[in-house]
C-alpha cells in the first residue's frame, strides 16, 4: 500500500527527521549551549523517535503486508527509477523501536558519562546524526536509499570512534574502522549493480517479490547473495572484516554500546533478513552466510578469553553474538536473527554501559587485572551487569536463553543447509554458547567479584555512578530479563515475534521436531549455559585462573590475544604490500617525476643562458648577424630557385 500523507502509521517517517534536527541544532549552535542542555536536546530528539515508533507500532495492523510512504523521486536514469520513500512494515518497525528505544537510554546515560567533556555538543550532534542515519537504513524502501543510511552510520561510527582524535591511537582506530567498512560498502555497491542487472529494479520490495521467479540457485542470485554477505560482514564485523570492531572501543563507552553493540553492527543482520527471499532462492549463498556467522561466533568467543581490557572482552563478545545472528539469518531463521538483535540490544548495551560506569568510577582504568570486587562498591552497576551476564550466557528464563535457543533450533532444522551442515553448525554454535557463558563469567568475576586488585589511589575514589547513568542500566536490565518472552518456542506458548515478523520475512519450511526433541534442545541450551558458567567458575574463581595461565606458554594464548591473528594476516597481505607500493610510487615520484621536472627547468635555463651569450650589446655584432642571416636567406632563395 502506497501512502503519500502522514497518518498514524507513516508518522514513524518523521523519526529520522527529528533526530536530524537534533543533530543540526547541536551541531550548529551547540557550542553556545550549556552542558546538560545539549544532552537533553539529543535525548528528546531520540525519545521523540521512540514515541513515533511506538505510535506506528500500535496503529499497525498485525497482518498488513507493509506500507510505503513515498515523498519524492530520488533518481531517474534510463530504465532506472528510484523513489525516495520509506517502507514501514513489521521488520522496520521492530528495528526502529530498538534503535530509538535503546538509543534513548544511551543518550540519557551519555549526559552523565560525558559530563565535563568540552566536546559534548559535537558528541551529541554525532550521536543524533547516527540515529537518523540508522533509521534511514532500516526504513529505506530501495537499496540506494538504504545505502545512504549505510554510509551515514559508517561516517558517524568513524566520527565517534575518533571522538578523542587528539590521541593518535583513537584516530587510527577510526580510520581502520572506516577503511574496513568501505570494503564491505564495495560489496553493497556491486550487489546493487548485479541486482539491477538481474531484476531491472532497485526497489527492495520489487526485488524480493521477483526473486522466486528467478532460476533456483542461479549464479547471479548466489553472486548477489555473496556480495550482500560481504556488505553485511563489513558492518556486522564478521570474518574476514571483523578487524575493526575491537579497535572501535577507542570511542567513548556509550558509543560502543549504541553503535558497536546494539544497532549498527546489526545492520548486516537486517540487510540479510530484508533480502531473505534472495537467499531462499540461493541456498549456496545462504549456507555461506551461516558458516561465516558460526565461524565468527566461535573464533571471537575464543579470542574473548585472552583479552584484558574490560571493553575489548565485550567487543569480541559482540562479534561472537552478531555471528549467532548472522548464522540465524543464513539458516533462514529470520525471526530468530531479529529476535537475537532485540535481546542482544538490551543485554549488550547494558554490559557496555555497565563497563562504562566502571570506567567512569575508576577514572579511566580499563584493565580488568586492576579491578575486582567492584560489585560491593557499585551495587546498581554490579547487579545489572550480573543480570546482563546471565542473560548473554543464556541462563534459562532470561532473554538470551530464548533467542539463542531459537537460533540453535533454526540452524538444526534449516531447509537451506545441507543435511550434514545443519547439525554440524548446530554443534559448533552450542560449543560457542558454552564458551560464551565461560568468558562472560570471567568478565564478571574479574570486574565485580573476587578480590580487589585496585591501586590505592583508585580505591579511594571508586563510587557508584549518578542516577542519570544508573537509571538507564536498571531499565535495560528489566529489558534483558523480559525481552525473551517475546519469542517463546511455539510449542510452549505464543511466539509473538515470529508471528509478528511472519508476513514480511521469507517463508521457509523448517523441519518439524518431535516434542521430545524440542525439549532436548531446550535442555541442551540450558546445559550449555550452566556448563559454561561452571567452567568459568572452576577456572577463574576456584582455580584463580591457574589453568588459563598454563595456556600462556602454548601458541594459543598470544593468538587469541591478537584476535586469532587476523590483524597480522591483514597486515602482511594488504597493509605491507600497499605500503611498499606507496613507497615505490613515492620514490618514483621523487626520483623520476620530480627530478625530471627539475632537470627540464634547468635545461630551459641553460638554453636561456646560451641565448644571452649572443646578446653582447655590440651593435656591429648584431649587424653582422643580420648580414649573415640575409646571406643565408638569399642562399636558400637561390638554392630553392635553382631547384625549381
Amino acid at each position, binding site marked *: 500500500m502506497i501512502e503519500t500523507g502522514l497518518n498514524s502509521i507513516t508518522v514513524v517517517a518523521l523519526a529520522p527527521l527529528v533526530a536530524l534536527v537534533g543533530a543540526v541544532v547541536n551541531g550548529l549552535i551547540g557550542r553556545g549551549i550549556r552542558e546538560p542542555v545539549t544532552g537533553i536536546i539529543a535525548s528528546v530528539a531520540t525519545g521523540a523517535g521512540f514515541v513515533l515508533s511506538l505510535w506506528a507500532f500500535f496503529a499497525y495492523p498485525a497482518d498488513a503486508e507493509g506500507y510505503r510512504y513515498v515523498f519524492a523521486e530520488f533518481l531517474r536514469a534510463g530504465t532506472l527509477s528510484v523513489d525516495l520513500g520509506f517502507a514501514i512494515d513489521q521488520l522496520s518497525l521492530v528495528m526502529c523501536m530498538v534503535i530509538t528505544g535503546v538509543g534513548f537510554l544511551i543518550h540519557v546515560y551519555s549526559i552523565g558519562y560525558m559530563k565535563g567533556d568540552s566536546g559534548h555538543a559535537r558528541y551529541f550532534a554525532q550521536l543524533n546524526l547516527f540515529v537518523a542515519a540508522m533509521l534511514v537504513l532500516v526504513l529505506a524502501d530501495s537499496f540506494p536509499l538504504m545505502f545512504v543510511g549505510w554510509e551515514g552510520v559508517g561516517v558517524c561510527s568513524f566520527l565517534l570512534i575518533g571522538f578523542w582524535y587528539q590521541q593518535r591511537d583513537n584516530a587510527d582506530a577510526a580510520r581502520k574502522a572506516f577503511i574496513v567498512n568501505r570494503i564491505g560498502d564495495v560489496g553493497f555497491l556491486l550487489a546493487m549493480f548485479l541486482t539491477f542487472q538481474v531484476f531491472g529494479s532497485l526497489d527492495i520490495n520489487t526485488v524480493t517479490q521477483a526473486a522466486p521467479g528467478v532460476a533456483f540457485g542461479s549464479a547471479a542470485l548466489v553472486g548477489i547473495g555473496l556480495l550482500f554477505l560481504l556488505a553485511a560482514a563489513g558492518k556486522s564485523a564478521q570474518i574476514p572484516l571483523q578487524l575493526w570492531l575491537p579497535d572501535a572501543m577507542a570511542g567513548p563507552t556509550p558509543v560502543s554500546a549504541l553503535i558497536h553493540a546494539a544497532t549498527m553492527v546489526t545492520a548486516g543482520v537486517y540487510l540479510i533478513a530484508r533480502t531473505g527471499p534472495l537467499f531462499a532462492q540461493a541456498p549456496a549463498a545462504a549456507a555461506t552466510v551461516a558458516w561465516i556467522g558460526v565461524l565468527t561466533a566461535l573464533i571471537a568467543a575464543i579470542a574473548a578469553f585472552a583479552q584484558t581490557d574490560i571493553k575489548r572482552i565485550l567487543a569480541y563478545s559482540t562479534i561472537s553474538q552478531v555471528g549467532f545472528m548472522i548464522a540465524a539469518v543464513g539458516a533462514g531463521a529470520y525471526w530468530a536473527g531479529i529476535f537475537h538483535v532485540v535481546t542482544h540490544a538490551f543485554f549488550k548495551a547494558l554490559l557496555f554501559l555497565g563497563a562504562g560506569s566502571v570506567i567512569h568510577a575508576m577514572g579511566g582504568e580499563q584493565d580488568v587485572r586492576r579491578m575486582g570486587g567492584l560489585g560491593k562498591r557499585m551495587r546498581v552497576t554490579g547487579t545489572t551487569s550480573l543480570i546482563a551476564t546471565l542473560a548473554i550466557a543464556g541462563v534459562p528464563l532470561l532473554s538470551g536463553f530464548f533467542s539463542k535457543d531459537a537460533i540453535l533450533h533454526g540452524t538444526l532444522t534449516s531447509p537451506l543447509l545441507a543435511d550434514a551442515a545443519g547439525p554440524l553448525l548446530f554443534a559448533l554454535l552450542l560449543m560457542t554458547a558454552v564458551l560464551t557463558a565461560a568468558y562472560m563469567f570471567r568478565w564478571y568475576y574479574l570486574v565485580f567479584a573476587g578480590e580487589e586488585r585496585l591501586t590505592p589511589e583508585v580505591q579511594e575514589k571508586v563510587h557508584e555512578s549518578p542516577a542519570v547513568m544508573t537509571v538507564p542500566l536498571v531499565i535495560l536490565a528489566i529489558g534483558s530479563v523480559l525481552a525473551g518472552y517475546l519469542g517463546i518456542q511455539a510449542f510452549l506458548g505464543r511466539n509473538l515475534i515470529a508471528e509478528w515478523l511472519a508476513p514480511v520475512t521469507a517463508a521457509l519450511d523448517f523441519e518439524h521436531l518431535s516434542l521430545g526433541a524440542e525439549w532436548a534442545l531446550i535442555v541442551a541450551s540450558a546445559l550449555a549455559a550452566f556448563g559454561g558458567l561452571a567452567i568459568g567458575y572452576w577456572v577463574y574463581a576456584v582455580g584463580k585462573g591457574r589453568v588459563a595461565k598454563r595456556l600462556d606458554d602454548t601458541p594459543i594464548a598470544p593468538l587469541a590475544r591478537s584476535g586469532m591473528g587476523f590483524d597480522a594476516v591483514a597486515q602482511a597481505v594488504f597493509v605491507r604490500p600497499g605500503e611498499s607500493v606507496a613507497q615505490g610510487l613515492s620514490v618514483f615520484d621523487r626520483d623520476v617525476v620530480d627530478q625530471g621536472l627539475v632537470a627540464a627547468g634547468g635545461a630551459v635555463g641553460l638554453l636561456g*643562458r646560451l641565448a*644571452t*651569450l649572443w*646578446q*653582447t*650589446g*655590440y*651593435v*656591429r655584432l648584431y*649587424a*653582422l648577424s643580420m*648580414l649573415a642571416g640575409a646571406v643565408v636567406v638569399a642562399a636558400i632563395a637561390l638554392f630553392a630557385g635553382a631547384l625549381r
Partner: protein
Amino acid sequence: MNVPSEYFVALSAVLFGLGAVGVVLRRSAILVFLSIELMLNAANLAIIAYARQWSATGGAHALEGQGAVFIVLAVAAAEVAVGLGILVAIFRNRVTTDVDQLSEVRA
C-alpha cells in the same frame, strides 16, 4: 651607347659589399651611417638598372622601378634625419660616437 645591365648590377654589388663591410667594421657611428647610405644607394642602382632594362624591352611597368627608387630615397632621407638626431643626442651624453662603447647589455 648601350651599357649592359650586368655592369650596373656588378657595380651595385661591389658598392653593397663595401657598405656592408663598412657597417660591420667601422666603429664610428657616423661612418656606419655612411656605409648604410652606400648600401641603400647600391640597392637603388640595381633597381634602376633593372627598370632601365625593363623599359628597353617595352615592358608595361617601366616606371615602377624608378618610383620605387624615389620612395627609397625619401625613406633614406627621413631615416638619416632621425638617425642623426639620435646620434647628436648620444654624443651630447657620452662625448663619443663609438658604437662599441654604447653597449649596455650585460648578461
